[in-house]
C-alpha cells in the first residue's frame, strides 16, 4: 500500500510534523520564542524546520500554507482556494474602510504619532477613525508625548502585522513603492529604512512589488 509520505523520510521530517501539529493547534500565529519554549529547539532550528515545512506544503500542493507573520508562524489555507472554501466564514481580518486604511498607513509609517500629527497630515479630523482602529485592536497607545497637554502617542499593534500578513514593520517598509518625493524622516521611517531619494515625478504603474511567499 502506498503511503502519502515516504516512510524512510519520517525520521528526517519528524520535527516538521511536530511543528505542523503545534501550528494546527495554535490556529493563530505562534511566536518563534513560544515554539522554542514548547519544543526545546533553538531559534535557528525552528526557522529551518519552518522553511522545510513551508516547502513541503508547497511542493506537495497541499491545501495549507505556512506563512511568517508578526514574528511568528501560522498555518493558513492556500489563498487560491479562498473562493472554494469561502462558505467557512472565518473573519480573521477586521473590516477596513478606505479612510481607515489611510489613517492606518500614517500610523504604521510615522509611529509614534499623535492624533494632531495625523490630522495635520490629512488635513481633516481623524478622531472617529482613530477610535475605531483602536477598538479593532490595530492601533495601540504607546504612551504620552512629553509636550504640553501630554497627548497620546499611537502605534500599530502585533495584530495589525497579522492582518496585513507581514513579519515586521521593516518587512512592510520593503513593500513601499519607489519614492516620488522626499520623505520627511521620523524615528520610525529611519528605523524601517524608507527610500528617501528625491526624484522627478514618476508615473507609478501598480504599487506592489513582488513579495516573497
Amino acid at each position, binding site marked *: 500500500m502506498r503511503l502519502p509520505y515516504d516512510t524512510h523520510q519520517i525520521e528526517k521530517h519528524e520535527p516538521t510534523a511536530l511543528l505542523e501539529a503545534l501550528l*494546527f*493547534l*495554535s*490556529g493563530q500565529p505562534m511566536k518563534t520564542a*513560544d515554539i522554542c519554549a514548547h519544543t526545546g529547539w533553538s531559534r535557528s532550528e525552528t526557522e529551518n524546520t519552518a522553511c522545510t515545512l513551508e516547502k513541503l506544503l508547497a511542493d506537495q500542493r497541499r491545501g495549507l*500554507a505556512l*506563512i511568517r507573520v508578526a514574528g511568528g508562524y*501560522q*498555518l*493558513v*489555507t*492556500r*489563498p487560491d482556494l*479562498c473562493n472554494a*472554501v469561502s462558505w*467557512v466564514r*472565518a473573519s*480573521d*481580518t477586521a473590516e*477596513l474602510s*478606505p479612510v481607515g*486604511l*489611510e489613517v*492606518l*498607513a*500614517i500610523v*504604521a*509609517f510615522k509611529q509614534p504619532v499623535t492624533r494632531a500629527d495625523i490630522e495635520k*497630515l*490629512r*488635513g*481633516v*479630523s481623524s478622531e472617529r477613525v482613530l477610535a475605531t482602529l483602536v477598538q479593532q485592536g490595530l492601533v*495601540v*497607545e*504607546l*504612551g504620552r508625548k512629553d509636550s*504640553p*497637554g501630554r497627548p*497620546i502617542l499611537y502605534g500599530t499593534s*502585533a495584530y495589525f502585522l497579522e*492582518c*496585513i*500578513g*507581514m513579519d515586521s514593520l521593516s518587512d*512592510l517598509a520593503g*513593500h*513601499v*513603492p519607489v*519614492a*516620488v*518625493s*522626499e*520623505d*520627511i524622516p521620523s524615528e520610525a521611517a529611519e528605523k524601517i529604512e524608507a527610500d528617501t531619494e528625491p526624484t522627478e*515625478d514618476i508615473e*507609478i504603474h501598480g*504599487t*506592489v512589488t513582488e*513579495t516573497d511567499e
Partner: protein
Amino acid sequence: MEEYKYKVSDFEGPLDLLLYLIEKNKVDIYNIPIVEITDQFNEYVNRIDVFDVNYASKFFVMAATLLQLKSRLLLPKPPKEHPDEEEDPQEALVRQLVEYKRMKEISEMMGTLWEKRSRMLSRAGTPMAYEPQFTGTIATDALYQAFRQACRVLETQKVPEIHIRHEIYSVDECMQRVAYLLRQSPGATAVTDVFRTCRSKVELVVTFLAVLEMLKMGRCHTLSDGEDGNAVALRYTPN
C-alpha cells in the same frame, strides 16, 4: 462651462480635492499654477452642500490659503525687512501635498496586502489547559503593602516638575501601555520597571490598578524574581 463630475463631499478633505485638481490639470506638483488651481478649487467650494460644519470648514480654510497665495503672486512683493525665517507658504503647502500623496500611495499598497492576507483563512486556536484563576479575598493590609512598594519606586525617581496639573488617565489606557511594555521583553519584566515609567502619583495609582486588573483577567502572570526570590516580575500571557 466645465462639467463637474464630483462634489466636494466625494473628497476626503481639501488636500484630496487639491490633488485631484493637480492631476486633472496635469500640472507639476512642485510648480502649481496657483491662479487656475485656486479658481477651480473655489468653484467646488462654492457648491458645498454638506451640513457637517467641521468638514466644510477645512475646505474654507484651504480656499483662504489658496487665495492668499494667489494674492501674493499678483501683488508686488513688499520689501523684506528681516531675512525671511518662515517657510514660504507655497512651499509649505506643496510639502503637505506631497506628503499626503505619498501616504495615499502607501495606503493603496497596504490595501493590496490586506486583501491578499484576507484570502488566507485560519482556524481559531485550541485553548490551552485550564490555568486556575485566583479566587478568594485579599487582606487589605497586603494590598496596602504592595502599593507602598510601588510608591517607593516613584520616591527614588527624580520626577521633573510638571506645570500642567490636570492629567486624566484611564485604567484601559494604562492596561494597553503595560501590555505593550510586557510584550516587548521575551522573558519577564520586573514590576518595579513597570512602575518606573510613571511620572506622577496619579499615573502610578492608575497603572497599579491596571496591573491588578490584568492579573485578574489572566492577561499576565507573576513570577518571583531577584536574588532571594522576593521581588515580583510580570510576564505577558499569550492566549
